[in-house]
């Protein structure tokens, strides 16, 4: 028999007491876990919403007559002036954005660097099947990262240089279907996909790879605009815009003000408030555990006296109580995680409409650590005090 076995036997005999002590731990961890789970789900929802907003930084040629974000583009209208941005400046913009975003996120490790999508575009007007169509040259990969809401309705997304993607209305008006071969200012392209209706100007556009557009319209090395998506609460979009304006000549960077950002800040506040609440609950739980442990120790003054009379040192007594606290912590932590997660499923939809709560396995570890720390801390003081009682007194108190 070893000390922990003795403790285990004692726990079995005093089940109810131990469960009672556990309850305090469970209530504390449960609250923390449910709040964290709910706010994580809420955050996920807000991030999902943010995706719908697309770019939050637009880089245009320094002299340009039109305002992109306002849209209002008529089908077939030529809206791009003769001013372009040299393509090499795209990488300068990318460099500045990445540096500032990673700095803001506190990422120093090169391998973990966050890369904000930077999508250059070239706008041109062309006549396709007898109608005037706005053709947009895009960096297919980067564009996709920004237009996360794009869904290819028919066919596939573009990746080869001779492929084209048609907006829903363009396809409808011109009677395009995937597989159709078109002539774009003398360059042969194949429509490989048709986008689902987006409700934006994209429905009236045709998309081809940037290089293809540059070739067809004789704009080699030129782009009309660059969309950047630097989306995070900490991302200093306005600072990035200022920096781009200062460092890169011939361009005008505009930060797009977003409701999403406000929402994100709101979310942060709510999170902080809830965490504070969780902390208070945990503290109250700690108090409850200290209380039950005090009682539990007091009830066992005689047992402690016996153990010491037959040769237990103070350390061994404290150790026995810590073992018990670890059991309380482990079981309480698991229960706290399970109940907290279930609670999150119940209260999550009440706090944030339409969120989907998922359980977070990593929080089990967090829950265990919290519960064990609370249980051990709550036990240390009463256990320490118990060993200060003189052995003779521990028998007399009965």
């Amino acid at each position, binding site marked *: 028999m070893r000390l922990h076995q003795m403790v285990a036997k004692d726990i079995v*005999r005093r089940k109810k007491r131990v469960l009672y002590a556990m309850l305090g731990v469970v209530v504390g961890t449960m609250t923390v876990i449910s709040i964290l789970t709910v706010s994580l789900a809420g955050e996920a929802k807000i991030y999902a919403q943010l995706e719908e907003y697309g770019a939050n930084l637009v880089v245009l040629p320094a002299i340009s007559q039109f305002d992109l974000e306002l849209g209002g583009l008529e089908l077939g209208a030529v809206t791009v002036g003769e001013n372009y941005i040299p393509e090499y400046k795209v990488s300068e913009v990318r460099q500045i954005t990445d540096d500032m975003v990673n700095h803001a996120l506190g990422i120093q490790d090169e391998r973990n660097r966050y890369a904000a999508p930077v999508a250059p575009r070239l706008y041109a007007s062309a006549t396709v099947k007898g109608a005037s169509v706005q053709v947009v040259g895009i960096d297919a990969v980067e564009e996709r990262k920004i237009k996360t809401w794009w869904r290819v309705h028919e066919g596939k997304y573009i990746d080869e240089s001779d492929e084209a993607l048609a907006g829903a209305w363009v396809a409808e008006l011109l009677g395009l279907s995937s597989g159709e071969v078109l002539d774009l200012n003398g360059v042969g392209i194949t429509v490989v996909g048709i986008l689902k209706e987006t409700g934006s100007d994209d429905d009236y556009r045709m998309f081809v790879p940037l290089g293809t557009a540059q070739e067809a319209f004789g704009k080699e090395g030129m782009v009309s605009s660059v969309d950047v998506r630097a989306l995070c609460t900490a991302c200093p979009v306005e600072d990035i815009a200022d920096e781009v304006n200062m460092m890169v000549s011939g361009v005008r960077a505009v930060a797009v003000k977003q409701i999403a950002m406000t929402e994100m800040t709101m979310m942060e506040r709510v999170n902080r408030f809830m965490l504070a609440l969780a902390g208070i609950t945990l503290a109250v739980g700690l108090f409850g555990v200290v209380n039950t442990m005090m009682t539990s120790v007091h009830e066992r003054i005689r047992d402690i006296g016996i153990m010491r009379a*037959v*040769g237990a040192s103070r350390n*061994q007594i404290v150790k026995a109580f810590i073992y018990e606290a670890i059991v309380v912590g482990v079981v309480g932590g698991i229960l706290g995680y399970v109940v907290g997660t279930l609670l999150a499923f119940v209260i999550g939809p009440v706090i944030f409409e339409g969120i989907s709560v998922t359980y977070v396995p990593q929080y089990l570890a967090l829950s265990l650590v919290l519960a064990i720390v609370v249980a051990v801390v709550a036990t240390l003081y009463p256990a320490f005090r118990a060993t200060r009682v*003189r052995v003779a007194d521990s028998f007399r108190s009965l």
Partner: protein
Amino acid sequence: MLEVKCVSKFYGEGTTRVVALDDVSLRVDDGDFIAVMGPSGSGKSTLLNIIGGLDQPSRGEVILDGRRIDDLDENALVDIRRGDIAYVFQQYHLLPSLTAIENVLLPLLFRGGDTRPKKAMDMLRRVGLEKRADHKPGQLSGGEQQRVAIARALVGDPSLILADEPTGNMDQKTGTEILELFTRLNRDGHSIIMVTHNPEIAGQAGQTIVLKDGRVESTS
């Protein structure tokens, strides 16, 4: 082996001060069997607790094998409880969640050495309780519990056994059996100091000390 020199013990202070022991001296040699008698409140248990290091005297000295133990710190007292001195209490003081044999193993467990059940089983056999090894205290009679407590005291092979009214909670017959057990242990070489109310039991002891109001009234 053990000497108690002019030991006094007070509880409380000022006008509420109670004198539990007043200038008590005694001497225990190897193989002695000493009975301590006296009315309730005469300081018998206090004396035993002080000898065993469960309590500390307000004044005086306790010397065990040439070494003062009355002013030792807790850690040093632990060593004494683990080695030279063992206790048997009137209330048995067994841990209720452990079986008989586990209770007997307890001193070995705290000592950190060999905790295989063999030695504990030997001790239970010595007190005639090997068949009850897996019973919990609640399932044992008073006499049986006291035998377990005696086995627990013996497992550490102490030179001195302190017994505080070990038969106080028993009927005549059981009490006699327990007493016989003690006389046998005494013959085996254990020194014993036993607190008792019973003059017959005291008659079995080699030496009797009678306490009254914390003072030694007579020695025989």
